[in-house]
């Protein structure tokens, strides 16, 4: 499983904590079973929403400041996901540049009516990173990616709670199930490749992926 090298600077504990907002905003920390900081929750307001749509509108007109704000807000999300998949800071930075430039060039690809920007960028970053691993071109267009969730991932506290619950579900999950999910999501293996790697049948892999995702959905929507 790829992991970020030690030289990677980790000033933000949640992918949502951007470099420009971390100082002075952090109030609560959530630590994983090993005592490592896993999540920090912003204290600037429990329901402060990120008004992304006006920024996207400004990007459409070529507003570079708006793009810089989007970068400050979400570069951590994209970089963290890319680094988790690729395990290489330089490659993760390349994916970050690629995803942000795509958004700059085609802001209409993101439609706020079809999902929030944070999960959308996380999905795109993960997809680009997996394809980077597979050394193939992206197969999903930005504008084709519609995301639905019962969790309002645009509200920081709600999103942070959902991420923390998802982490607990993954931590409590049987190891064989978690490994299958992580091989698929973060290592970019196909079901057949996972079957070869783990010695499990395709049917078992399918069942475990379904059950893992269902458990996460159940945990965050309860």
């Amino acid at each position, binding site marked *: 499983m790829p992991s*970020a090298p030690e030289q990677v*600077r980790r000033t933000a504990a949640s992918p949502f904590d951007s470099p420009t907002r971390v100082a002075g905003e952090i109030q609560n920390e959530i630590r994983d079973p090993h005592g490592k900081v896993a999540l920090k929750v912003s204290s600037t307001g429990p329901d402060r929403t990120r008004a992304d749509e006006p920024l996207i509108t400004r990007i459409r007109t070529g507003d570079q400041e708006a793009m810089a704000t989007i970068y400050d807000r979400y570069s951590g999300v994209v970089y963290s996901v890319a680094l988790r998949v690729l395990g290489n800071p330089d490659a*993760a930075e390349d994916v970050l540049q690629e995803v942000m430039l795509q958004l700059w060039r085609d802001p209409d690809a993101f439609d706020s009516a079809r999902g929030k920007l944070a999960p959308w960028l996380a999905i795109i970053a993960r997809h680009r990173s*997996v394809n980077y691993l597979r050394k193939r071109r992206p197969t999903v267009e930005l504008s084709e990616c519609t995301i639905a969730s019962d969790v309002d991932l645009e509200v920081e506290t709600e999103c942070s709670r959902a991420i923390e619950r998802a982490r607990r579900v993954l931590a409590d999950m049987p190891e064989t199930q978690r490994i299958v999910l992580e091989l698929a999501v973060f290592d970019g293996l196909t079901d057949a490749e996972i079957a070869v790697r783990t010695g499990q049948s395709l049917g078992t892999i399918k069942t475990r992926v379904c059950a893992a995702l269902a458990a996460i959905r159940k945990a965050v929507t309860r």
Partner: protein
Amino acid sequence: MTGHERFAQNLPLYAIDALSVSEADAMEVHLETCAACRRELENLRGDLALVALTSEAATPPPRSRQRLLAAIAHESHPVPTRRRMGWWLIPFAASAFLAIFVAVLWRDNYVLRDRLVQLQARIPAQQAEIPLAQDLLALITDPKSVQVDLLAANTKPSPHGRAVYAPRTGALFFMASDLPPAPPHKAYELWLLPKEGTPVPAGTFQPDSNGNATLIMPAIPAGLEAVKFAVTLEPETGPRSPTRPTVLSGTSQ
């Protein structure tokens, strides 16, 4: 297991790009027609986003921000892109298309109805003309009808004919009189001579014992502008091209 159930079971693997290329292609075909699977795929992407967001937080190096800002400054404005039609637009596009289609059908229907009314209004007059036309045709074609050509006094009868031709429709009526019998294995043939091009045959005929003959509505191409008409003697069978001498000829008025 139905086809839909099989696709539905594979949806989580598709959402995380874990299907083979061929299975993913088949899934995309299914998704085009299955709204339930499209909705579930959106939910699965929401689940996948949460899994991705569990990644340990990391901060990109500061140079990355400068790199992006330099790149977008170089591209002073976003490249205008034509937005692709998403699935969610399909019902609206289909509704708009149907509305236009229905409007066109309604207009065509209105025009056709109007034309039908006009045609129906003409039916009584045309029906009244039918008996007269039938009587006229019977009169002309009946071999027992007496045909008399009135000429100037003391003029010897000689072969002559009269053609009535409508170029727009190709309708033709031809009547000849005082023709001598055609030689053995030969027949008279009427020709239409266009301004340019080769003569067009309008049919062969044999005069009756009184030297009279008629040609009614032979097959003539519509739109043929004939400047001259001619009758020649031709072999009863064989290639169609006029041979001299010309028995009768006349120029279109």
